[in-house]
């Protein structure tokens, strides 16, 4: 039995078969990784682009971002506050979904997309305080319809920014001021400290 198998496996036919099996396994794994990176289905096909282009501020619907970790999602009343005055609400099939939600008092089961694992304690406030704009991390939503992450939100990506912004280089410290470089050094220790995000 084993002997047969061995003989077959070393025959050219067998080798090709083995190759095919290996390839298919590999591609399966690749696909598995790929699907985990896809944005999930949302209850409402909410088009950020439209709203942003209508000059709606991010913080109008996500005010939590100013104060704390979770930016918060708009309440139905907030959606409806505008939409009940918009004629398009009654016509557009997409908005019919919203209308249904509101009129039947159902909750919208949004699925958070830009989320970090629960062992990462991310807080919007200091980032906004540090002058990071929403689009720096979330991408240009005026061009994005359904939201999806512009990049993988992983630790390397966080650190890249933390490091570059605290580097003692020409754009962080143009006239090579010793005080500034001291501040930068302190910031760097803080921003690359494990305990800043993991506790």
């Amino acid at each position: 039995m084993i002997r047969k198998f061995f003989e077959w496996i070393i025959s050219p036919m067998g080798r090709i078969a083995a190759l095919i099996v290996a390839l298919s396994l590999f591609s399966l794994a690749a696909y598995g990784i790929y699907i985990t990176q896809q944005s999930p289905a949302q209850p409402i096909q909410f088009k950020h682009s439209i709203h942003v282009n209508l000059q709606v501020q991010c913080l109008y619907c996500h005010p939590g971002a100013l104060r704390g970790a979770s930016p918060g999602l708009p309440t139905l009343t907030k959606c409806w506050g505008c939409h009940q005055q918009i004629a398009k609400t009654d016509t557009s099939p997409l908005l019919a979904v919203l209308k249904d939600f509101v009129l039947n008092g159902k909750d919208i089961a949004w699925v958070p997309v830009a989320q970090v694992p629960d062992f990462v304690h991310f807080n919007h406030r200091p980032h906004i305080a540090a002058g990071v704009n929403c689009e720096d991390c979330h991408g240009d939503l005026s061009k994005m319809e359904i939201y999806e992450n512009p990049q993988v939100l992983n630790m390397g990506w966080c650190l890249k920014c933390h490091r570059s912004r605290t580097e003692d280089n020409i754009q962080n410290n143009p006239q090579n001021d010793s005080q500034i470089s001291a501040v930068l050094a302190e910031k760097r220790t803080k921003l690359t400290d494990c305990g800043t995000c993991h506790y």
Partner: protein
Amino acid sequence: MASYAKPLARQKHAEEHEEDPRQHLMHDPLPRGQMNAMVMESMRETGPIFWIITAVLAAFVVFALGYEWYVLIMQGQGVAGVTRPDYWGVFLVNTVFWIGISHAGTFISAILRVLKVESRRPFTRAAELMTTFGLVQAGLSIFMHLGRVWLTYWMFPIPNQRTIWPDFHSPLMWDLMAITTYLLCSTMYLFLPLIPDLAMARDRTQGGWLKVFYKTLALGFRGTEGEWKNLTTAMNIFAFAIIPVMFSVHTIVSWDFAMATRPGWNSTVFGPYFVIGALHSGMAAVAIVLFLLRSTMKHYKYFIRPEHFNTIGMLMLLVSMAWAYFYFNDYIVPWYGGDIWDKLFQEYAEEGPKWYLWYTMLICNIAVPWLILWNRKWRETPWLLALAGILINVGMYLERYIIIPVGVTINRMPFTWRQYEPRIEIPMTVGTFAFFLLLYMLASRLIPLIPVWEVQEGQEAHLIRKIGKAEISTLSEME
């Protein structure tokens, strides 16, 4: 076949006792063809008992190392007996133990080869196999110990998006490096001397997957002068190179403990002490294996003879004495040092709930070898030597057990002192033993456990010529 052989150590001795020189393997040559045939036969001819045992072992390995480990991983380390303060348990005992066993191979085959001890010739390979398979068990035991084994790769210096590297301050990292190096070296060192025999086996196998197997592994070795030259050079290089690795490995393993801020562990003598301990258990293990091979494998009575047991026996006695010396060191130093915690550590081992382990250890490691091994007749009695080997290994296991789970009870916070009782460790430990045996048995069907060419080389070196009536063993330089 260019090689060099030393005159047999016991030449004079033999003449005085006018015994038949043919009792020495070196002086009892057989025609090559016959010898090769014998070895091949010993690999081929397999009774049903062999396969039954293999099946049982395999089943047990699947249960212990497969199922039990699955449970351990899915439920957490809690199913083992570890607790505070006994964070380390039997799994690490096994690691240290198996690394110890693995030392025999290198010691026997490398050091004895370097020292040109003739009687090493028939059993170098058996020992080298122990090295490789022992290290496999050691590695497994470490992984069993990890709380989140699926993340082991974080210990390897792989570039990753987190931009974090492992911490090379940690003795565990040194450990990882040392063991990996040792595994690679010893495997290479096992493989090199194997090549000619694989070639021999290849030439004596017709067709089938075995043929493929040998063909692939023999790397097309045909035994030309040039090949022999390269091979011997490579072997010599490895023989010399692997000795420091061997010493470093167990020294580093000992640092896992010596570097800790624990009473009883934080000791400078741990390095040599662990190395000699490793040799102690290793030599003993060789004795057991030789006995098993001699009594189970066909024709091996020819290859493995009392004289070899005698050699092993003497080494065991020697190592046992050295071990005793180091243990005394390790014991007396803290005793004089008078650190209260070290004292408690020793008292706990002697008078604590596990006192009997301590006494058993001393008996097995010192009394037994010193009582049995001083007598040549006894040394040359295989079963007796094997028995001594088993006892010594028990003793050495207990030694590690006392250092880790028992000793770890004693820390500087008496409020936390607790006893450790192994739980799932027991089947899994037995599992590693079964796995070791299984690997060995399978190997015995695949590769010649006797380095035939090495024996032949020796025999050709020691010819017995008939001059007049006298038979004189001569030593010839061969081209």
